[in-house]
């Protein structure tokens, strides 16, 4: 038991007081949240997402306006949905979910989360591998690649995956601290890399940036085989790329330490540094690569950053990929361990690391990162809608909130039905009506709310 406790403590300091509300003297000030959000949202994914917007033919005006509005909506979601509930309840998502949905549902949720974590970590291992492979003149993956196309790639991915897994098995605390140290430096490297290559794109002063941005960087023309992204794609992607964290309520674990719900607005540092400046910077780098390589379909953040700012750029790609992959892998291991807490942590992490590394060998994981990130948020979103209704509406409707805890049930069927029906609805909307995955979260949330209210009425009447 004691061993298990230290394990959770190692996972993340925010997992203290997991089964109780945070005491008043442990609450944190706004500065703590500014730093945490800025660090968390400048990561390895940023090296992929910015270039993918270029590949999908986003125009300059669509990109800038879409990102500004989408990021504002994300910040509002963090403040008005997540932070308000976090301050009201002061418990983690997992504890709240256990009270509402029951232990069995939380277990299923954890496993789904673990699977998604593995794929996210896998894509970051692949990103880091593109930088590690530079000295070995490794053949880099192509934008259209699905399967690994050379032995060098597989060996490099396995080398990075092995190191990441071993560190995840033994040293989460140090990686977490290292990530905090690396965050300000990474932001500087992103900005510096973009600034340093602008003259090569024809930008000689600040005044000429916009015309080059429109004509050369974000031309509005997608690359061969890529779908076209417009304003709404960008807006919804920026809003929903962290849907699991805000609307999906995963950040209850973090924001429950906030003295006031208004601290949710501190997420603005993360989204405007990571999801605005870093995406624009990495898009600029990729655009230059496309021009200088005459439209090559090679998609490798490592060599692109190396070409812009040398060794510092390559190190930045490795560090960004690694500091994202490592805690993600560790969390995936812990989520799987929740099936049977007697399993050894290192064995579970080893298994998860092996699975993740095999997944990382498939370049499709990186090339389809936009779709994957959207899917990740979508799958976890219904749980956030359930929590929102349970906290604010259920008692006002004469129903019981925290129903699993009150009734002693291990599985609140209203939550399970809500999850399944919402995801089935989104799938049908995608397959039958052709609504793209980036837009499914919004109608899905309202469906989840409606289904949960109806299902709760039926379940609780019994």
């Amino acid at each position, binding site marked *: 038991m004691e061993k298990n406790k230290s394990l959770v403590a190692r996972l993340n*300091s925010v997992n203290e007081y997991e089964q109780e509300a945070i005491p008043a*003297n442990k609450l*944190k000030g706004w500065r*703590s949240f500014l730093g945490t959000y800025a660090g968390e949202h400048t990561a390895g994914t940023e090296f992929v997402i910015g270039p993918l917007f270029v590949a999908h033919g986003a125009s300059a005006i669509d990109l800038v306006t879409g990102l500004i509005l989408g990021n504002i909506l994300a910040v509002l979601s963090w403040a008005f949905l997540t932070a308000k509930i976090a301050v009201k309840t002061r418990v983690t998502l997992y504890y709240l979910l256990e009270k509402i949905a029951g232990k069995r549902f939380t277990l299923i949720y954890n496993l789904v989360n673990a699977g998604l974590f593995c794929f996210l970590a896998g894509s970051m291992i692949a990103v880091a591998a593109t930088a590690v492979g530079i000295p070995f003149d490794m053949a880099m993956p192509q934008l259209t690649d699905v399967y690994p196309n050379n032995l060098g790639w597989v060996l490099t991915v396995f080398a990075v995956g092995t190191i990441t897994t071993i560190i995840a098995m033994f040293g989460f605390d140090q990686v977490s*601290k*290292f990530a*905090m*140290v*690396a965050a*300000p*430096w990474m932001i*500087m*490297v992103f*900005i*510096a*890399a973009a*600034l*340093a290559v*602008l*003259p090569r794109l024809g*930008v*000689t002063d600040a005044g000429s940036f916009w015309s080059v941005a429109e004509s050369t960087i974000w031309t509005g023309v997608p690359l061969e085989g890529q779908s076209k992204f417009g304003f709404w794609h960008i807006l919804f992607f920026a809003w929903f790329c962290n849907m699991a964290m805000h609307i999906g309520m995963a950040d209850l674990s973090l924001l429950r330490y906030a003295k006031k719900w208004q601290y949710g607005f501190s997420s603005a540092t993360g989204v405007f540094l990571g999801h605005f400046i870093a995406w624009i910077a990495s898009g600029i780098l990729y655009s230059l690569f496309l021009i200088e390589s005459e439209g090559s379909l090679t998609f490798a953040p490592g060599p692109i950053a190396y070409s812009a*700012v*040398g*060794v*510092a*750029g390559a*190190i930045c790609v490795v560090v960004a990929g690694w500091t994202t992959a490592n805690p993600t892998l560790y969390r995936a291991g812990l989520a799987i361990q929740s099936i049977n807490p007697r399993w050894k942590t290192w064995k579970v992490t080893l298994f998860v690391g092996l699975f993740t590394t095999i997944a990382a060998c498939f370049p499709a994981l990186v090339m389809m990162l936009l779709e994957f990130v959207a899917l990740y948020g979508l799958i976890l979103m219904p749980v956030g809608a359930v929590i929102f209704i349970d906290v604010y509406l259920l008692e006002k409707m004469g129903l019981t909130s925290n129903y699993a805890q009150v009734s002693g049930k291990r599985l609140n069927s209203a939550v399970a039905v809500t999850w399944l029906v919402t995801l089935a609805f989104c799938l049908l909307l995608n397959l039958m009506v052709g609504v793209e995955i980036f837009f499914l979260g919004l109608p899905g949330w309202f469906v989840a709310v409606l289904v949960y209210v109806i299902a709760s009425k039926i379940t609780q009447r019994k």
Partner: protein
Amino acid sequence: MKKLLIKLLSFIGLGLNIVPAMLVFSAEMTPDTCKQLMLAGTILWFVTAPSWMNKGQEDASRE
């Protein structure tokens, strides 16, 4: 005093990552010099910053 000096070195390291790129943009420095200075800045940052950056957090968690 020592802590202040280390912090100063950290911020110089951070500055070495951004100022040379600005100078490349304004055509006052070559990209190769910028790359070397950025590497030097990176090393300086990672050598000095860990000694003070996580301290605040640790202190706060001990409160």
